[in-house]
């Protein structure tokens, strides 16, 4: 048995050490917010927070976790009472098919907890690893800007540098 802490709750699971964290979250703990996209750490739909940092849970073996704490989208509030980041995504209607959105929200959460006044460039660079095939990037960015304000800060706009 391996023990892990997810969204503040301790769990014991019967799994091999090399099992990806994503499988344990979805199959054993029935936390189905994080999605299996590519399974190669290239799309970001499986993004969760491990000790407050965004990681691809499809490539995080259980053995790597140690006693670090996991947070998933289920830990950011409920459908009735969403936290500021999921609430902003809802207000901006950032989801089209929605498959990438839990990962997007978790990555945005990590940024805004660390720095709720990022520049637009920092915001874009931070979100770059997560992909959206529907193409709702502009709404996703708008949602993160809205969430930054809701968290007491705001994204710092600046003249956009063109390469």
């Amino acid at each position, binding site marked *: 048995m391996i023990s892990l802490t997810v969204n503040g709750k301790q769990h014991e699971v019967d799994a*091999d*050490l*090399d*099992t*990806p964290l994503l499988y344990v979250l979805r199959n054993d703990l029935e936390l189905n917010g994080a999605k299996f996209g590519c*399974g*190669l*750490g*290239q799309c970001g739909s499986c993004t969760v927070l*491990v000790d407050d*940092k*965004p*990681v*691809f849970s499809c*490539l*995080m*073996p*259980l*053995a*790597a976790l*140690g006693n670090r704490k996991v947070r998933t989208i289920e830990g950011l509030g409920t459908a009735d009472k969403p936290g500021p980041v999921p609430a902003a995504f809802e207000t901006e209607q950032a989801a089209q098919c929605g498959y990438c959105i839990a990962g997007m929200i978790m990555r945005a959460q990590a940024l805004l907890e660390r720095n709720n006044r990022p520049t637009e*460039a920092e915001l874009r660079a931070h979100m*770059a*690893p997560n992909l959206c095939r529907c193409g709702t990037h502009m709404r996703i960015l708008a949602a993160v800007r809205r969430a930054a304000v809701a968290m007491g800060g705001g994204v710092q706009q600046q003249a956009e*540098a*063109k*390469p």
Partner: protein
Amino acid sequence: MADVGNCAGCHTAAGGRAFAGGRPLPTPFGTIHATNITPDAETGIGTWSREAFVRAMREGIARNGMHLYPAFPYDHFTNASDHDLEALYAFLMTRMPVQARASANDLKWPLDFRPLIAGWNFLYLKKGPMADQPGQTAEWNRGRNLVEGLAHCSDCHSPRNEWGAEKHGQAYDGAWIEGWYAPPLNAHSPAVQPWTADELFSYLRTGLSARHAAAAGPMASVTQSLAKAPDADVRAMAVYVASLMADAPSAHGNRPPIDHQELADKAHPAAAALFAGACAVCHDSGAPMMQQGRPPLSWGTALHVDTPNDTLQVIMHGLRPPAGRSGPVMPPFADTFSDFQLADIAAYLRARYTQQPPWPDVLKAVGELRRGGAP
């Protein structure tokens, strides 16, 4: 020629306009800020004549007579042909002018006194252009002219003396650059498979060789730039660089991939589980990526050199081509693994995929990279 020399690599700031300068270049002597080489009259090279440009490239002297620091590799550019320098001048002068002034340099005393560079030039600058070597093919000579000139390959791949000049007699012996170890490109090449002209061509062109590995760190930027250079020029460079490594151990035939899985699993059981859960999905022999002809880990030079630095850099920070460009991709693992786990995985890879003795001080190397420091 600007792509062969990767001018934009240094002369473009992160997120800035191409060739407008401003990028800080850390050197052992302090920080130098790359200048604006767009044709802006006030802050760039807009007022520079062709003669002034050629003098800067050949002698390291700016239009106003000021000595330029050798971080600008005029000790290589001096070798370029008149024709190539003229083409480069014509290209740069027809870029969009950008008004941007580079920050002041932050150099240790007394190196902020530029006339001292005259002494450096007297000792270390061998003025070009470079004459062709008789008895060699035109393609080889073209490659040599580009590699020793505008492409300035040995700028990163050769060790330097206490004055920052490349050590005489140790050309292409390998060197440290911006937190990476650039491996030797001569008879000391630690490559496992032969670096043939064909392999070098595809590596320089695409950032990936099927018999070696993907380009990473500063070399990834070089290959991104060479991807836009003329075919014939990159092929000539490949021919010349292959000839530099003709006496390397790897030149004498292909070696099959090494995989001491049982041994490594026994020596590093924890890392074996981490590898199985995080790395095997791409790097195991049966993985989909491997079915596309990607090289096995044992053919990558980084695992065979004396330092774990480059292996750790790639594991921690992954590979990501610039936005909108294609190239090899690998996710970063710095936040997935602890320092101890990263060190354990590196040791596991070394044991499983090479015949080399274990690296000493892998954990220390992880710590240095965590702090962002270069060894």
